[in-house]
């Protein structure tokens, strides 16, 4: 009756060759990609002056970390950075939410023109406007304050754009349902749109934090005191244009600046990436 079959137990194919290649490729690339960080870790554990040899027989040492730790008030800088990053993020979230909401759901004359203007801001590089921005911050009396560092970044075109997209993808019915249930406009925003855009917020927060955690020049320029300066200023002390840097020390300093962020990322990696995934940024 079943001539076509040699046996009832079908031979199973070998593990897919493609899949093995994929995994190999992915791993190799991953290792290449973090190799600078691996190298930095290695260098930071080497005595000054021997890091480049890649001589694995050398004993590991924590002296670089001790040296770097004692050199700079890291705790203070760390606190400043956290405050700064939080402040910027908070400002961005509020401003971009309001503006994104306006662009997504309100009809007003000139809306599209203004939105194009907003997008243009993406191209206006704050790096070259430092002198002008310094003057403005200084005139506003915000010099040497966290707010002064943060203010120029708060109206983020990128954020407005992302949130507008996110809000636009929220079904209108949700808004209508909320309105029928008695929500005001602000209520609709707060109770419907913001929760619906949560993944986008998370994703955006990640980008924002990574950016501002690492910002150096602007905070340096508009601050005067260690009371407001961020971590990167501490890091900059170990970069030495006049004499060339000490790789072990700078590695140790680098690792110390990014460690909090990196650890947070490693712990919340899944959530972060999921957040991005769910954000469906397109």
């Amino acid at each position, binding site marked *: 009756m079943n001539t076509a079959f040699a046996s009832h137990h079908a031979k199973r194919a070998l593990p897919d060759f493609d899949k093995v290649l994929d995994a190999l490729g992915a791993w190799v690339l991953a290792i290449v990609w973090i190799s600078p960080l691996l190298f930095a870790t290695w260098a930071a554990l080497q005595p000054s002056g021997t890091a480049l040899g890649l001589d694995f027989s050398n004993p590991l040492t924590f002296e670089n970390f001790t040296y770097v730790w004692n050199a700079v008030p890291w705790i203070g800088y760390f606190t400043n950075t956290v405050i700064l990053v939080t402040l910027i993020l908070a400002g961005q979230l509020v401003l971009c939410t309001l503006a994104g909401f306006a662009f997504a759901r309100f009809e007003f004359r000139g809306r599209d023109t203004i939105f194009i203007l907003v997008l243009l801001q993406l191209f206006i590089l704050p790096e070259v406007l430092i002198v002008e921005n310094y003057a403005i911050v200084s005139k506003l009396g915000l010099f040497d304050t966290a707010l002064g560092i943060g203010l120029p970044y708060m109206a983020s075109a990128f954020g407005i754009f992302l949130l507008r997209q996110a809000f636009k993808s929220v*079904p209108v*019915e*949700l808004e*209508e*349902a*909320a*309105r*029928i*249930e*008695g*929500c005001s406009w602000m*209520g609709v925003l707060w*109770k*419907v749109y913001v*929760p*619906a855009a*949560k993944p986008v917020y998370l994703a955006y927060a990640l980008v924002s934090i990574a950016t501002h955690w690492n910002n150096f020049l602007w905070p340096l320029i508009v601050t005067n005191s260690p009371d407001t300066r961020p971590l990167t200023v501490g890091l900059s002390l170990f970069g030495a244009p006049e004499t060339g840097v000490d790789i072990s020390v700078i590695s140790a300093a680098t690792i110390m600046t990014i460690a909090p962020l990196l650890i947070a990322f490693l712990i919340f990696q899944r959530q972060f990436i999921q957040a991005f995934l769910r954000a469906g940024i397109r």
Partner: protein
Amino acid sequence: MTAQTPFIQIRSVSRVFNGGNGVHDLSIDIPRGSFVVLLGPSGCGKSTTLRLIAGLETADHGTIAIDGKDVTNVPPSKRGLSMVFQSYALFPHLSVAENIIFGLKVRKTGKDEIKSRLTEALNVTGLEGYEDRKPAELSGGQRQRVALARAIVAGHPLCLMDEPLSNLDAKLRHSVRKDIRDLQQRLGITVVYVTHDQTEAMSMADIVILMKDGRIEQAGNPADLYLQPATAFAAGFVGSPPMALLPASALPDAVIPPKTDAGRLTFGIRPEDLVLSTDTSTKAWGISATVTGSEFLGAETFVYVAIPGTSGATARLPGQVHIAPGTQVSLSWAGAAAHWFGEDGQRLAPTATREAAREPNTSFETDTAIPSL
């Protein structure tokens, strides 16, 4: 219509969109406590009408009054109504319970009251035990029930529903249909219900308002619509399979009503009213037709026939019927079963005789298990 003032009064309301679509000069009276279905093909303005009542659209002209109060320019939240959306519009980040009490919280209802109302709504909709789930963790039917619970929890006397069942599968739709109707009757609320599914309209409505191109085609109780469709459109829209509509010119002269012009008349016959006979000699008259196919549905069989000069007709026969495509048959019907429509699509009176035969009756007996051979 009814003697007392209607609960909802829509007077000459228009809402025209840029494309010229929308609703035009609509007047509807909806009695308190009734279940009114807005029926019609896609794009005919059902949702627009509903949204006008809800206040989600603003009328260009005309007035809308709910419970004797002019609400034409009142925002949705102040109209004292609730709404169930086709997509349910559940808030995905809130749990079932939070979804249901959303409006109560917004309106700052007291904690205890919220609690008792929630319990009741969960109870009524059979959602106990699901309070803490997120909508994404529910099946379609459960989501539908949450939307329902949210609509009834506030105790508004009016509930609007826009195709609330169209995302459910056939089986579920049937049972939820019953639940909604029961609920409406139990709570004594007024429901305005939008659907394009005539079965739904027929089985649920006290009053069906059939719309077409932004205007009302026919309004009345389901039996009216089925038995006395006011227009050819209504005749074709209500009933499944739909009424066959044939040009009178394709019929034998014998059946054409006297004093009418066959060239301008349309004849309509419901599938269940068509009599098929393979023995073409037994009847005095009959339309000869060819069977093109049949569909067995368990309790009944649809037989499709081609009639020269027409787009064909469907006959609905009880039980299983094997009939080969290509078979020649003769079609006939009881005279009272015929519907006639004029050139303008309007029904031609009189057709009262047959209607009488279907008068309500509470004493009867039926056995259709064996088809009459």
